[in-house]
């Protein structure tokens, strides 16, 4: 097996055993990026010099056997919404072209302390708004399983990088499914932690009350390991929780015997591909065979989650994105005759169509006279969704469903129909609104394209979600399937 095809844990052992060095490993991954990068377009920026510096430093630690951590020397990709000190960070937007943050996100600092190696900034939908990566301000990402297909979004670059061997693992961000959906569509594991579990400091905001950073990896154990490294309270993020972080690996292999797993009937949505529905039912049966008791549950307000999300997220975004006015950093159009005209020119030229659409939606929803009918109403719906989950979790330990109603679709297939695009997130959005956590784990191939099983657990119940996902993964071979791009260079 090629180095870039392996898991974090495998490589960690090889690094510790001095079988390989971090520099060799990093070179191997860069070679793969060189080989397939122009096909996937997974990266917006490759930080080769930084990575080699970090790899050498990691090798020092490994050689000296000093402070060796699970991620020491492991090459990791970072979604472009994460600020890295002195490294261009654009959130996939032209309006941030040239912006070099003078500080690093908290998660980035934590990975640095672990001794991880940063490969670069991965492509994404502009300001993480999208489900196909076609809203990137620079170029779309292509799915390593079929280059004419989308990798999902908005963390499509991170997903494609892990699925093509262009990274061992990656960080993404998930506001309405942006980690789980691309993970499902590229055959990897992706987890959205509970809101407040991971610091958002240094994450370029889309919707502040929904955004969470999470791991995207080859398997569930790697996800647990990466989450362990980034989770925990951060005094710089007032919305981060001070609850202690459990040892995710300690309970990972405990199995599902005796667990109660719920299947929300509303998650078998209209428009779900029959083959996806079948795979999910098979997955549920398999977990039942593992000793879990399965029962149907109801999350009655699931059908209004999507409309509520498309009020709340754009409302917050319209405010969060107001700062991009061209006067202090990033792109400036120039040529305005006064400050207002300059603002308008900069924002007209700097933002893409979907971002403008959401700014307008959000501005409208917050406007005087419409606030009660839209924003306030959506917040009430959000409360109902939180209550739905609370009620369900009095009966069951975790919920099961599909991550995405379909496998990866063709590039361009939905770009003309925003609502059809929004429907991709119909089963992932409730977890963001409901302040719970969710993980997507590969559960099969439909016409050669991967799909994902979603496991949802209560707020701060990451160990439960990981444990169920691990039990499923351990009993199946789906996660071992490699994309043609990852295999082709082998």
């Amino acid at each position, binding site marked *: 097996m090629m180095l870039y095809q392996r898991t974090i844990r495998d490589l960690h052992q090889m690094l510790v055993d001095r079988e390989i060095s971090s520099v060799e490993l990093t070179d191997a991954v860069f070679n793969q990026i060189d080989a397939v990068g122009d096909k996937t377009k997974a990266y917006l920026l490759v930080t080769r010099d930084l990575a080699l510096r970090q790899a050498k430093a990691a090798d020092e630690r490994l050689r000296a056997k000093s402070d060796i951590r699970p991620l020491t020397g492991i090459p990791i990709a970072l979604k472009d919404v994460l600020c890295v000190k002195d490294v261009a960070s654009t959130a996939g937007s032209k309006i941030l072209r040239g912006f070099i943050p003078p500080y690093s996100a908290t998660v980035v600092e934590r990975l640095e302390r672990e001794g991880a190696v940063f490969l670069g900034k991965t492509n994404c939908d502009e300001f993480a708004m999208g489900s196909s990566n076609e809203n990137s301000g620079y170029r779309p990402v292509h799915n390593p399983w079929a280059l004419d297909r989308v990798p999902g979004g908005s963390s499509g670059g991170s997903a494609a990088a892990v699925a093509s061997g262009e990274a061992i693992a990656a960080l993404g961000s998930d506001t309405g499914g942006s980690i789980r959906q691309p993970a499902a569509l590229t055959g990897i594991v992706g987890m959205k932690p509970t809101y407040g579990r991971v610091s*958002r400091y240094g994450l370029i905001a889309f919707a502040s009350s929904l955004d969470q950073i999470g791991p995207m990896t080859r398997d569930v154990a790697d996800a647990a390991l990466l989450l362990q490294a980034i989770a925990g309270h951060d005094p710089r993020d*007032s919305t981060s929780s001070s609850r202690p972080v459990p040892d995710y690996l300690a309970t990972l292999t405990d199995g599902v015997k005796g667990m109660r797993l719920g299947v929300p009937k509303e998650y078998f949505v209209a428009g779900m591909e029959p083959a996806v529905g079948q795979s999910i039912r098979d997955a549920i049966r398999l977990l039942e065979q593992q000793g879990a008791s399965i029962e149907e549950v109801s999350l009655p307000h699931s059908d209004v989650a999507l409309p509520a999300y498309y009020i709340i997220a754009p409302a917050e975004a319209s405010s969060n994105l*107001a700062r991009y006015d061209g006067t202090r950093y990033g792109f400036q159009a120039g040529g305005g005759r006064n400050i207002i005209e300059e603002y308008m020119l900069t924002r007209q030229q700097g933002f893409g169509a979907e971002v403008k659409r959401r700014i307008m939606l959000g501005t409208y929803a917050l406007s005087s006279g419409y*606030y009660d009918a839209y924003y306030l109403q959506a917040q009430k719906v959000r409360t109902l969704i939180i209550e739905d989950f609370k009620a369900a979790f009095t009966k069951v330990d975790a919920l099961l469903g599909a991550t995405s109603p379909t496998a990866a679709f063709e590039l361009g297939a939905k770009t003309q129909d925003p609502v059809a695009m929004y429907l991709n997130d119909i089963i992932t959005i409730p977890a963001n609104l409901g302040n719970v956590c969710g993980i997507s784990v590969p559960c099969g191939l439909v016409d050669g394209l991967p799909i994902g099983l979603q496991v949802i657990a209560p707020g701060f119940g990451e160990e439960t979600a990981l444990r169920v996902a691990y039990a499923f993964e351990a009993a199946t071979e789906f996660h071992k399937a490699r994309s043609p791009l990852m295999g082709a260079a082998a």
Partner: protein
Amino acid sequence: MTAIATRYEVVVGLEVHAQILTQSKMFCGCSTDYLTAPPNANTCPVCLGLPGSLPVINRRAVEATIRTALALNCEIPEFSKFDRKNYFYPDLPKGYQISQYDLPLSRHGYLEFDLKGEGKRCGITRVHLEEDTGKLLHEGAIHEAQASLVNFNRAGVPLMEIVSEPDLRSADEAREYVMRLRAILQYIGVNHGDMESGQLRCDANVSLRPAGSAELGTKVEIKNMNSFRAIHRAIEYEIERQSEVLGSGGRLAQETRGWNDARALTVSQRSKEFAEDYRYFPEPDLPPLDVSREWVAEIRSGLPELPAARRERLITTLGLTPYDASLLTSSKPMVEFFEETVRLGAPAKTAANWILGDFSRLLNADRKEIDQASVKPVHLQQLISLIDSGAITGRMAKQTFEAMYRALDPSPALQAARDSTQISGDADLDRIAEQVIAENEKSVADFKAGKEQALKFLIGQGMKISKGRANPQRLDALLREKI
């Protein structure tokens, strides 16, 4: 004005913005020093609103706001939150200001003050907490500037907004309200009350209505009033302007007007017929504030004596007139100066007269606060004792005081006054020495027996006879010689 006052009732409400004297900014660790630091030196990713940065609440600023609210008799709800006020302006780095909308830290208070001996009460609608903006510097006049510079040192400085009910009925009342409010802020140590630097800012909503009417008239907001005098003049001007418009059958426009101090008039800045839409919504980056009753009780117990209580004390225990007591307590440094002077031995009434008279006149002319003057309580007390002992005349004292005030060190002027009236003439001193010896036989005997202490007593008697004007060194020599 009298004719107008019978036809229209004046309605004034004030919005006062007061910066809070914390070490660090409202949502980050940057220093709040924006006046002396080089431009943009006290900034960081948070107060510059860089992508990905997040605010963290400064607990001391919340505490100062609650302290202010308690001093203004407000209710402090247990639950409060921050909201975003969205608008585009180059001095606002995030494109929104973190402020408070529907659940402020406090509401429903009042402020009592005294106007020409009559007690008044003005309702306080709310006191809330927000962040200040940066400061723009235009190249020339704003409407023709070719370039503007932004200094973000002030961005994120904690700012309280204190909103009054429309309970004020004249420019006099408005000025008095602000003076009282400023004194309270000084007393509780949240603000120095400097209006010129913008540490304390005041906007006024002014409207007129037919006397006896319960409905409010069209209101005009006046901005840019940088002193008590400006507040008074601007409101007076606006009352006159509005009554002229209404008197001639015209309609008033709802608008914002700026006070132009040099031209002594208000100028229309922008129409408010179409209210601006700030699209307030709860700040998702900050959790709501739970204000525990224990915390409020703790802050309440730490409140110092407030101006109203101090005023009462000055009247009842020192016998000052209500008017003098009001004036003295309107400024914390002034009342502290007064009380220290009295503590050193000066009679209260005399000290009050000096502080409110000559001293205030000189300070006002120089636009200085009493604690910035070189004259200290000890100097004033000594001057007063010279007058009281009859050593110098009132007229001389006035000249001496002004000389003391003008000097960096008031002591030489004070000493000169003392010297100029000293009795140093041999004949006069001789007469005093003789009288002392004649009247104090026992002490004279004691001194002869070697008790050095007795001579001190004799010199003291001489000073007493001379009403403090004898030169003590020469008296000492003369007594030794004679005994």
